[in-house]
């Protein structure tokens, strides 16, 4: 988007309303889908929908889309280590449970 901006651009009211409707719709979807049993995919579906919702909140409500790039890099680094922790944790536990 806009690079090297010194002062922040702003969002209008409209985009926030759109995102809000999107978030409510996704909440409806996640509730509707929760009743269906996809087996192991059930929790994955819930987490994917929650991630999409978080992405919308982060980029639009929290202005990351119009923020300087360094903010996005910071977030990606933080999430990277968060995901590493949980992957290693489960690598460990799935092994412990099986043995």
């Amino acid at each position, binding site marked *: 988007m806009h690079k090297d901006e010194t002062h922040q651009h*702003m969002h209008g009211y409209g985009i926030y309303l759109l995102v809000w409707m999107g978030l409510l719709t996704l909440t409806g979807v*996640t509730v509707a889908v929760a009743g269906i049993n996809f087996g192991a995919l059930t929790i994955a579906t819930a987490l994917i929908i*929650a991630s999409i919702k978080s992405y919308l909140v*982060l980029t639009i*409500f929290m202005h990351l889309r119009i923020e300087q790039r360094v903010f996005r890099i910071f977030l990606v680094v933080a999430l990277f280590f968060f995901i590493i*922790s949980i992957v290693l944790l489960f690598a460990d536990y799935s092994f412990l449970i099986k043995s």
Partner: protein
Amino acid sequence: MNTQEHAVSHVHRDDIASRMGMWLFLFTELLLFGGMFFLYSVYRFMNAEEFHVAAKELNTLIGCFNTAILLTSSLTMALSITAIQKDNKRLSILFQVITISLALGFMVNKYFEWTTKFDHGIYPGSDTLLAKEPGEILFFGLYYVMTGLHGLHVVIGAVLIGVMTRFTIKGVITKDSFVKLEAAGLYWHLVDIIWIFLFPLFYLIT
């Protein structure tokens, strides 16, 4: 913060650094809640069946309602920043007040939800709870700690926004200086994101 004033009433400030500081703080919140989500995921992995049974006790309707409330409060928070950017002070204050009211609404729901649980004898250390399976005890332990800590964040967020409303009324937060409001907004949206994950993980495992 450096508030060295120049002769022309020019106050030195760095809005980008202020927002960056807020983001760094939010990353520590990710660690705080992240640790609990790790705990939740391992316990659920080890006690899948019992988590399903225990989750049936939770009221999905209240959960849905509270989700809608928090999402809407995030909307009004974001709108209040746009309003102040457009120099519409009264509208900004109105949106902030709506945000605070929605936060209180969330806590009122939480109060009814928890007291209903207490009436059913489900609270940490109760005989009814201790008679349940170990996995169910873990589920309710996590439920109270995680939604409780989240609730505490909602209260803190509401107080913060209240302070910002006062600042807006007093003219500390203006069209040209609204980074404080933005920081409070970032905190509020984080509270929203945490709930976005808590809701399906606790209320929607059937």
